[in-house]
C-alpha cells in the first residue's frame, strides 16, 4: 500500500512539474469550451442579405423591417436591380437576396395573392435551406399579422415547442461533446504517453526488475489521471453553468459516476496503446488519429448518426464516446435519471470491462 502511495505521488510530481503537460491538462478544457461556446458555432446568426424592393410601399417597408428585426438576418444593402444581386453573390458579400415585386402592398391587400422571391447561395446547402426556412417563417408571420382581422377558412397553424432547449442554444449540444472529447484526449493520450515515457527512459526496466507487481504499475498510472480527469469534468461543468448559462438538470452524482466509468474506458484504451507502442510520438499519434478522430466523427457530436450509411451507423456502436455523449445529454439537458439510460450505461460498462481485461492481459511482464 505504501508502495502504491509513493508511486501515485511520483506520478503527480511528473504532471505538476511539467508545464506543458499542465497546460494541456487544464488549459484544454477551458480553451475548448471557449472556442465551441463563442467562436465555432453552427447556429445561423446575422447572415448578410440583400433586399431589392421594387414596391417601396408601406407593406414592403413593414416586411423588410420585420426581416431586419430578426436575429438571423442583417441587411447588407438595398438594391434596385437584378444585376446587383448577382454581383453580391459573386463577391460573396451576401448569402441571400429578397426580391419584392412592384405593387406589393396593393396586390397583398386586394388580390390575396402576391409573390416574394427568395434567392439563396446554395454552395453551402445546409445554410441555404436554413436561411430560406427562416425567411419564409418571417414572411408567414407578417402575413398572419396583416390578416389578423380577416379570417382565412381551413387554416392549420403549427404550434411548435422546442423541448429541453427552447432557445435552440448550441451549448446544449456541444458541452457534452466537449466533455467526451476532453476526457478522451486527456485520459487516452496522457496515460499512453506517461507509460511509454517510462519505457523510453528505461525506468520501466528497473520497475519490472523489482518486487513491484506490473498490475500495480498500471494502477498507479491510472489513478492520478482518473483524479485529474474528474477535476476536468468539474471545471467543464462550472464553465458551462456559469459562463454559458447551461444548468445541469439531472443528478450531479449520476453525472460524475457515468463520467468516472467513461474515464476508466479511456484509461484502459491508453494503457492498451502504451503496451503496443515504444515511442512517445507513436503513442501520441495513435491516440490522436485512432481515438480522437473517431470520437469527433462517430459520436454524434458533430455529425448526426442518423444521416450516416447503415454500415457506419453500426460502426458507431463500438465508439465509447457515442454512449457517453448520449448519457451526458440525457442527464444534463433532459434531466433524466438512471432508469432512462441504464441501457447505454450497460453498453459502456461492457466496453470498459472488455478493454480493461485486454489491456491488463496484454501488459508485458518482460521487455519483449
Amino acid at each position, binding site marked *: 500500500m505504501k508502495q502504491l502511495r509513493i508511486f501515485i505521488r511520483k506520478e503527480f510530481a511528473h504532471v505538476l512539474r511539467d508545464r506543458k503537460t499542465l497546460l494541456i491538462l487544464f488549459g484544454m478544457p477551458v480553451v475548448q469550451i471557449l472556442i465551441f461556446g463563442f467562436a465555432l458555432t453552427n447556429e445561423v446568426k446575422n447572415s448578410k442579405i440583400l433586399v431589392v424592393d421594387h414596391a417601396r410601399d408601406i407593406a414592403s417597408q413593414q416586411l423588410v423591417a420585420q426581416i431586419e428585426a430578426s436575429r438571423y438576418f442583417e441587411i447588407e444593402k438595398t438594391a434596385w436591380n437584378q444585376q446587383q444581386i448577382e454581383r453580391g453573390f459573386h463577391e460573396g458579400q451576401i448569402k441571400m437576396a429578397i426580391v419584392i415585386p412592384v405593387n406589393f402592398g396593393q396586390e397583398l391587400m386586394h388580390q390575396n395573392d402576391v409573390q416574394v422571391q427568395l434567392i439563396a447561395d446554395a454552395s453551402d446547402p445546409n445554410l441555404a435551406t436554413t436561411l430560406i426556412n427562416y425567411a419564409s417563417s418571417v414572411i408567414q408571420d407578417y402575413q398572419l399579422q396583416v390578416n389578423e382581422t380577416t379570417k382565412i377558412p381551413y387554416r392549420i397553424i403549427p404550434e411548435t415547442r422546442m423541448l429541453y432547449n427552447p432557445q435552440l442554444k448550441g451549448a446544449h449540444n456541444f458541452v457534452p461533446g466537449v466533455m467526451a472529447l476532453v476526457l478522451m484526449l486527456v485520459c487516452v493520450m496522457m496515460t499512453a504517453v506517461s507509460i511509454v515515457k517510462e519505457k523510453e527512459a528505461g525506468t520501466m*526496466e528497473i520497475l519490472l526488475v523489482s518486487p513491484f507487481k506490473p498490475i500495480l504499475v498500471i494502477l498507479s498510472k491510472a489513478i492520478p489521471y482518473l483524479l485529474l480527469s474528474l477535476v476536468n469534468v468539474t471545471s467543464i461543468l462550472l464553465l458551462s453553468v456559469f459562463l454559458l448559462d447551461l444548468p445541469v438538470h439531472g443528478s450531479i452524482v449520476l453525472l460524475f459516476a457515468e463520467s468516472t466509468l467513461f474515464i476508466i474506458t479511456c484509461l484502459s484504451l491508453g494503457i492498451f496503446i502504451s503496451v503496443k507502442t515504444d515511442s512517445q510520438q507513436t503513442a501520441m499519434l495513435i491516440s490522436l488519429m485512432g481515438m480522437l478522430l473517431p470520437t469527433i466523427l462517430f459520436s454524434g457530436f458533430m455529425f448526426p448518426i442518423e444521416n450516416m450509411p447503415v454500415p457506419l451507423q453500426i460502426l458507431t456502436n463500438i465508439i465509447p464516446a457515442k454512449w457517453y455523449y448520449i448519457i451526458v445529454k440525457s442527464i444534463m439537458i433532459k434531466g433524466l435519471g438512471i432508469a432512462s439510460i441504464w441501457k447505454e450505461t450497460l453498453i459502456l460498462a461492457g466496453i470498459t470491462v472488455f478493454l480493461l481485461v485486454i489491456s491488463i492481459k496484454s501488459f508485458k511482464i518482460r521487455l519483449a
Partner: protein
Amino acid sequence: MLQYYMNTTEPMSTRITPPAIVADNLTKVYGAEKTTAVNAVSFMVERGELFGLIGPDGAGKTSIFRMLTTLLLPDGGNALVDGHDIVKDYQQIRHTVGYMPGKFSLYPDLTIAENLNFFATVFNTTIEENYHLIKDIYVQLERFKDRRAGKLSGGMKQKLALCCALIHKPTVLFLDEPTTGVDPVSRKEFWEMLKRLKEQNITILVSTPYMDEATLCDRIALMQQGSILAIDTPDAIIKSYPDILYAIRAEKMPALLKVLGTSNTVATSYAFGEYAHATFKEHIHQEQDIVSMLQYAGMDNIEVKRIQPTIEDCFIKLLHA
C-alpha cells in the same frame, strides 16, 4: 553444471550455497532475420565475485543482462541467478537482485532524494535501513539532494543510479555499462566504489566496452559477436598471450604502420595509442633485428621495446585466432 543444481534432491540448507550466477548455453535470437545476439554462452559467477563482461558494442552483453534479470526470455539454454531459474522463478529473482540499465534510467524530473526514496519504497525498504551500503557514495550527492536528477553531471547520475540499485541490499548487482559516457575521474571513483561493495559480499556482474577496466575485475569474459572468447582472471588471460609483443614508434607513424603491414616477417601489427604493437615470426628474436629491418625500410628515430600485453592485445589476438 546447471543440471547439477537443478536436479539435486538435497534440501537447500544442507547444500553449499549455489553460485550467484550460473549461465548454461544461454542463447538469444532476435527478429525475423534470426540475428543471433547471444550464442550458447556459459559461465559461472561465484558469490562475492566481481565479474566483468568485456566486449565492444554488439557483443551481446546487454542481452545477457536482460536475460539474467528476467527481462528477456532466452531462446535456448537456461540460467540460475541466486539459485533461481530465470524463467520459472522470475519473481524471486526480481525480489533479490539489483539492476542498473545501460542508459541513465532514473526520473529526471524528480530530485535525488525523491528518486532514492521512490526506489527504496518500491523495493519494500527505506533509505535508513540500508544507509550503510550507500553511505560512501551518497555523501557525495547529499548536498545536492534537492536538485533534479536531470540536472546532474554524467558521473553524478551514475552514482545516483548505483545508490538506487543498491538501496535494497541486493544479493547480485547487475551493472550494464555503468561507466559509458562518464569522465575518466568519475570512472576511477566508480570502480573504487565497486571494490568496496565487493567487501560487503555483494556479487557484481558488470559489463564494459573499456578494455582498461577489465583488470579491475576478479574474473572477466571477453566477448565478441555473442560468443565468449575467453574466461579467466585478467592476469591469467595476459599470461596466456602466446607471443612476444613489441611496441614500436618511428617519426612517420603512417609509413611505419604500412611497412609493418606489408613486411613478411611481421605476424600481426596494429596502431595502439602513440605506438604500433606488433608480433613477429620466429626468426626475429632481438629488438636490434627489428630496428635494422625498419631502418632498411627507411624509417627514422625508431624506438622498439618489448612490452607486457594488455587485455586489449589479448582480445585482438583472440579475435584473429
